[in-house]
């Protein structure tokens, strides 16, 4: 996600609670925040709701925002936390039992025909049962192929920690796929 820099004056107005400044920032950053969240949750409706939730948290925390820092990077960290909360929530677990990595009615790109249906289902099952923190990192790093640096900034952790989580996710996936009779 490209991070746009904002004039300090606008950020100061936002920090002081001016609604016009917040609207201006919302309109500039809503696409970026949505684009980041949809890559994690993979459901457009949910991603829209979580984008609103992200900006609600941003608005509530405005007094703690330092106008000298990047608004985009701050927004991305909050968006990541919101998406992570969603993945951890019971709602996400219930939803994931009905929807999946590939169950997205609004998608425009068809599923890859080069994979058998049962293999896809077992892979999705194994992936859904990863811990939320690992699932988030694995989605961004392995499926979306986002740079480790970008993921690290979004999660406010080091690149080394991202690599560790990717490795742990892969190790767990291999174990679970093996249990499900899939040998990658």
């Amino acid at each position, binding site marked *: 996600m490209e991070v746009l820099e904002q004039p300090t004056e606008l950020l100061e107005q936002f920090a002081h609670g001016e609604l016009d400044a917040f609207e201006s920032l919302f309109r500039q950053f809503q696409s970026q925040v949505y684009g980041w969240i949809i890559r994690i949750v*993979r459901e457009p409706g949910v991603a*829209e709701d979580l984008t*609103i939730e992200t900006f609600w948290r941003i608005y509530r925390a405005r007094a703690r925002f330092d106008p000298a820092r990047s608004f985009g990077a701050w927004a991305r960290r909050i968006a990541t936390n919101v998406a992570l909360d969603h993945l951890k929530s019971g709602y996400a677990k219930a939803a994931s039992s009905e929807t999946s990595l590939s169950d997205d009615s609004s998608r425009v790109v068809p599923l890859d025909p080069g*994979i058998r249906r049962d293999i896809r289902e077992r*892979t999705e099952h194994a992936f859904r049962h990863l811990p939320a923190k690992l699932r988030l990192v694995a989605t961004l790093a392995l*499926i979306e192929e986002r740079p480790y640096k970008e993921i690290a900034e979004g999660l406010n952790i080091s690149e080394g920690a991202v690599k560790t989580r990717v490795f742990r996710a*892969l190790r767990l996936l*291999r174990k679970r796929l093996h249990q499900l009779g899939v040998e990658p």
Partner: protein
Amino acid sequence: MNEQNYENIEKLLKKAAAPVNPELQRDLWPHMLRRLEERQAGVPWFDWALLGLLILWLVISPRAIPVLLYHL
């Protein structure tokens, strides 16, 4: 885990996951504005707690009522 395993799992994951469209299809500001209005219209819980404490104080010591009125 060897490198080949890593790559195979990665390929499997990519095949199992359909790409998503990262473009936002509509302006979300009207929804945001509604959310702001809904939340601002509600009275925060601590305001109710303060009101409760005030009523309790006045019940316990009714002599405080004139003092309170004087300061209002």
